[in-house]
């Protein structure tokens, strides 16, 4: 275990290495959150509720969803994919540890910094807009558990998509495809409850909702205590299923490593 924890440290240091990238990234995040807030605000000026969602709920949802989406954001996945395409992945495979475990802890280290900063920034904005009146201790604890599990689900999905880069050179395309899928089906942009009938059913049987929608609903309180527990259980099931899928796909993918020359 100690060897994996060492990767958190290096991941963290790596995240710190580019101060200006980090600061501009934060700024971009902030602007995006504010824009999203005003878009929803204008929608709710013409309509009191959309599929049961009121402005009261929405102005919490916007910020919580944004916080959830900021963990394991795009940069990492691109770099993994690039390592595969360039062949640098062989250096990772020469280490006596699980490749996936190494990735997870490394990303955890890098994401830690980004997440902490987003937490402070978006958290203050949330409090400025909503105040303390919606907060509940119990729900916050469940939210943190669910948020962590959501990271697990997201990581499993990213891992599977990054393995696709063993078969194609287009790492950018793979990353973008994954990003669009997760953003849309996880509830990062639109709360899943607003989806029309059939689409709502489809989303229910997909793993993506565990990344953002589940922790968000738990925090805001649109899920009852029982619903929250079931959703958390569902997240664990998805991590197991996707984890297994990743293992199987990994076995196949590592068999096709064929970098000619170099």
């Amino acid at each position: 275990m100690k060897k994996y924890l060492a990767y958190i440290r290096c991941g963290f240091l790596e995240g710190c290495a580019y101060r200006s990238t980090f600061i501009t990234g934060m700024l971009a995040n902030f602007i995006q959150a504010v824009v999203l807030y005003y878009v929803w605000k204008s929608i709710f000026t013409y309509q009191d509720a959309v599929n049961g969602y009121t402005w009261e709920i929405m102005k919490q949802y916007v910020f919580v969803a944004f916080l959830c989406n900021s963990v394991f954001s795009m940069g990492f996945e691109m770099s993994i994919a690039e390592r595969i395409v360039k062949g640098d992945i062989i250096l990772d495979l020469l280490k006596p540890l699980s490749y996936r475990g190494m990735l997870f802890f490394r990303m955890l280290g890098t994401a830690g910094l980004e997440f902490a900063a987003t937490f402070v920034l978006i958290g203050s904005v949330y409090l400025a807009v909503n105040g303390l009146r919606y907060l509940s201790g119990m729900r916050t604890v469940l939210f943190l558990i669910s948020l962590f599990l959501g990271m697990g689900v997201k990581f499993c999905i990213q891992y599977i998509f990054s393995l696709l880069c063993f078969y194609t050179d287009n790492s950018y395309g793979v990353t973008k495809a994954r990003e669009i899928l997760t953003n849309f089906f996880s509830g990062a942009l639109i709360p899943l409850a607003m989806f029309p009938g059939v689409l709502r059913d489809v989303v229910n049987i997909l793993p993506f909702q565990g990344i953002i929608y589940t922790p968000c609903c738990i925090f805001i309180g649109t899920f009852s205590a029982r619903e929250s527990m079931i959703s958390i259980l569902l997240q664990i099931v998805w991590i197991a299923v996707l984890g297994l899928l990743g293992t199987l796909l990994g076995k196949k993918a590592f068999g096709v490593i064929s970098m000619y020359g170099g």
Partner: protein
Amino acid sequence: MEMIEVRNLKKEYRIAKKSTGMMGSLKHLIMPQYETLEAVKGISFRINEGESAAFLGSNGAGKSTTIKMLTGIMKPSDGTVRIMGKDPFLNRIENARRIGVVFGQKSQLWWDIPVIESFRLLKNIYGIPEEQYNRNMEKFGEILGLHDFLSQPARKLSLGQRVRADLAASLLHEPPILFLDEPTIGVDVAAKQKIYEFLRETNREKKTTILLTSHDMKDLESICQRLIILEKGKILFDDTIDKLLKKYGGEMSLEEIIIRLFEYDVLV
């Protein structure tokens, strides 16, 4: 003891067959065609504990491919590889603990963080005891001259500095087997001497088995006793360097022999 055993090892690559021009690219998009390329065509050899052997061959002879299969990161198409009695591809993690690898073209150092952090990470990954880590860092630092740039991130190192740091990184856990794929790329003459000395000492003191590929004859003569010449995926010669020199009556230098060899493709 036999450290490396290779029997009838083969590797085939499937490469895209594209015709030139726009039409060719379009054709490939709709109906991709592939051809098989045999990079390694059934080679066999054994390397014993404490031996230092060199792979020599012209570009594309299959040297790097063979090293990649020996280190367990690439699956052979056919044949068997045993590293200390075990299949390296099936026992990747166990195998990784027992080998050290340097790819001169690539670096295992972390690009954006100080070199020393990469070493600290290796200490944790391999579970190297504090005492051994300090001793090795001291020794490697002195011989390879690492002290000047340990606090710099890898991206700021020169090629030669980077290769030296990579070499130290691969030996920190004192592996019984060391694979070196073109380890002296971009290294100046003085530093090369240091690397030779360092490797000879490691080979002698720790009985580390070394397998090296290089295009630099000086590398081969300075580090290795045994020479395995690969050409077009087959072994042309496998014996001591002295024997090869004797075969040519001792008149030609190793370099001249090799040039002739690559030109005529056979041992004359």
